[in-house]
């Protein structure tokens, strides 16, 4: 009895989390445009999506921003994690705490702080401001992912590298980086996903000159339900599903 109650409770939580998403996916294949009744299977909404140039443009922009910001944030974040682990310098603790604070701080605060910063420094709102902002909120997630992996290392590996005459950069390039690769790739995937999904920060730091997918979806959703959005959301959800599963496999691998 007790065990069944517990299983039921857990199943209930999973049902709560997944039922709305499941319904969304099912309805993206529903032929009827307005009713919630099932009137037959169709791929029509996906086809319409493929021919909607506004959505495709926004998707293209989003993919550019997400790839660039993921690569740059991973580069900076990995270096930062290595620096935090290997070097003791003034302000290390403060800087490391700030990385965590960025991760915890509400998106809206980051959004308006960057908006004020860009407006006062005279950078016009668009591609550049969006890219800089996305890199900024992705960096902490890379730092945390990579740092978690380094701290599990045997420090003797690094000592061995030094004894064998490797310089700082060589140690990083030939010893640390290969060992860190799974975490680095996982950070890259998570940054990409994070950037592709962001609404709130982007809302403040981009304008009509450079539209991205989440903001496009946001403006469409405000006008009500459309089967095309169901299809688009399904595609994005499946993408998240894959990238999270892969990044989980990458992180888990070390524990074997």
């Amino acid at each position, binding site marked *: 009895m007790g065990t069944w109650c517990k299983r039921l409770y857990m199943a209930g939580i999973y049902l709560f989390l997944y039922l709305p998403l499941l319904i969304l996916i099912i309805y993206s294949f529903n032929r009827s445009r307005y009713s*919630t009744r099932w009137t037959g299977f169709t791929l029509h909404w996906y086809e319409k999506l493929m021919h909607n140039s506004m959505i495709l443009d926004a998707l293209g922009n989003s993919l550019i921003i997400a790839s660039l910001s993921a690569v740059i944030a991973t580069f900076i974040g990995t270096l930062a994690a290595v620096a935090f682990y290997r070097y003791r310098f003034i302000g290390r603790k403060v800087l490391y705490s700030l990385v965590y604070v960025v991760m915890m701080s509400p998106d809206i605060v980051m959004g308006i702080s960057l908006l004020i910063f860009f407006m*006062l420094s005279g950078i016009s709102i668009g591609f550049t401001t969006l890219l800089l902002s996305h890199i900024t909120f992705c960096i902490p997630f890379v730092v945390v992912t990579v740092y978690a992996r380094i701290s599990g290392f045997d420090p003797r590996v690094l000592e061995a590298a030094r004894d064998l005459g490797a310089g700082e950069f060589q140690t990083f390039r030939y010893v640390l980086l290969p060992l860190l690769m799974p975490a680095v790739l996982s950070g890259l995937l998570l940054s990409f996903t994070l950037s592709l999904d962001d609404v709130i920060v982007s809302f403040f730091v981009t304008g009509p000159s450079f539209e991205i997918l989440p903001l496009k979806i946001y403006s469409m959703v405000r006008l009500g339900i459309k089967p095309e959005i169901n299809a688009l959301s399904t595609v994005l959800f499946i993408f998240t599903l894959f990238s999270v599963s892969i990044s989980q496999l990458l992180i888990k691998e070390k524990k074997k």
Partner: protein
Amino acid sequence: MTEKSFFRRSAIGIVFFWITLFVLIPNLLVIICSFLERDPAHFIRFVFSTESYRNLFAAVFFRIFLNSFKNAFIATLVCLLLSYPFAILLCRVRPSLRRYLLVLIIIPFWTSSLIRTYALVILLKGNGILNSLLMGAGLIREPLQILYSDFAVFCGLVYTLLPFMILPLYGNIEKLDIRMVEAAFDLGASRMQTFFRIILPLTMPGIIAGSILVFLPALGLFYIPDILGGAKSMLIGNFIRDQFLTARDWPFGAAASVILTAVMGFMLLAYYYSLKRFNAKLME
């Protein structure tokens, strides 16, 4: 060893530069901006003023804030009450299965909250699934108007933020040393005593970390009232956005955002102390 110092200097330099330029300075600008006067043409005028903070206490706005805080608090509490037993149960599942169950929590954690909010619309709307089911079961005669109400906003907050409570709690409870609990029982503590005096204090860091990740977004996620709420549903996030984009009163919006940052500061401080206590307990 010039090569050493070059790599070291650039690694530290680049992160120091980035955080200072894009986090520290912008946040300082928000604080400065909140103490300035508004200017319709140039957003702000460089004259010191505390008017924005005094305006926060004007009845109209104060009610919005109070309401938003109340909503966020209840949403956080509900998330906590749902997640705590779940996290404990999850820790007891055998590891091979637990791995997959955990990934099933991580997936919604990373899925766009906008999409998850939108998914709720389909479920809750007048001729939606929930109403059809309830009417089919004969429980109600007419469709319930759930969507476009404060209650829908509340549901949306709990639904989108639940994984953000579960994961930190799980991370904390998983590390809990089960021998502490056994020791409490051996020393004759009742189940209640063990829970309130041993388990709860030891999992406090997880509780606070989860509460930060739920409470702060529950004040700021402005698209949830936009999509699920009625005409009057408003979070502090909606208020801040409107000040920046429609009312064009930057200092007022900045002051509201400083309040959010202050709340975060207090919660982080509480986290820090609970963590210290947690570590002290382990060392005793």
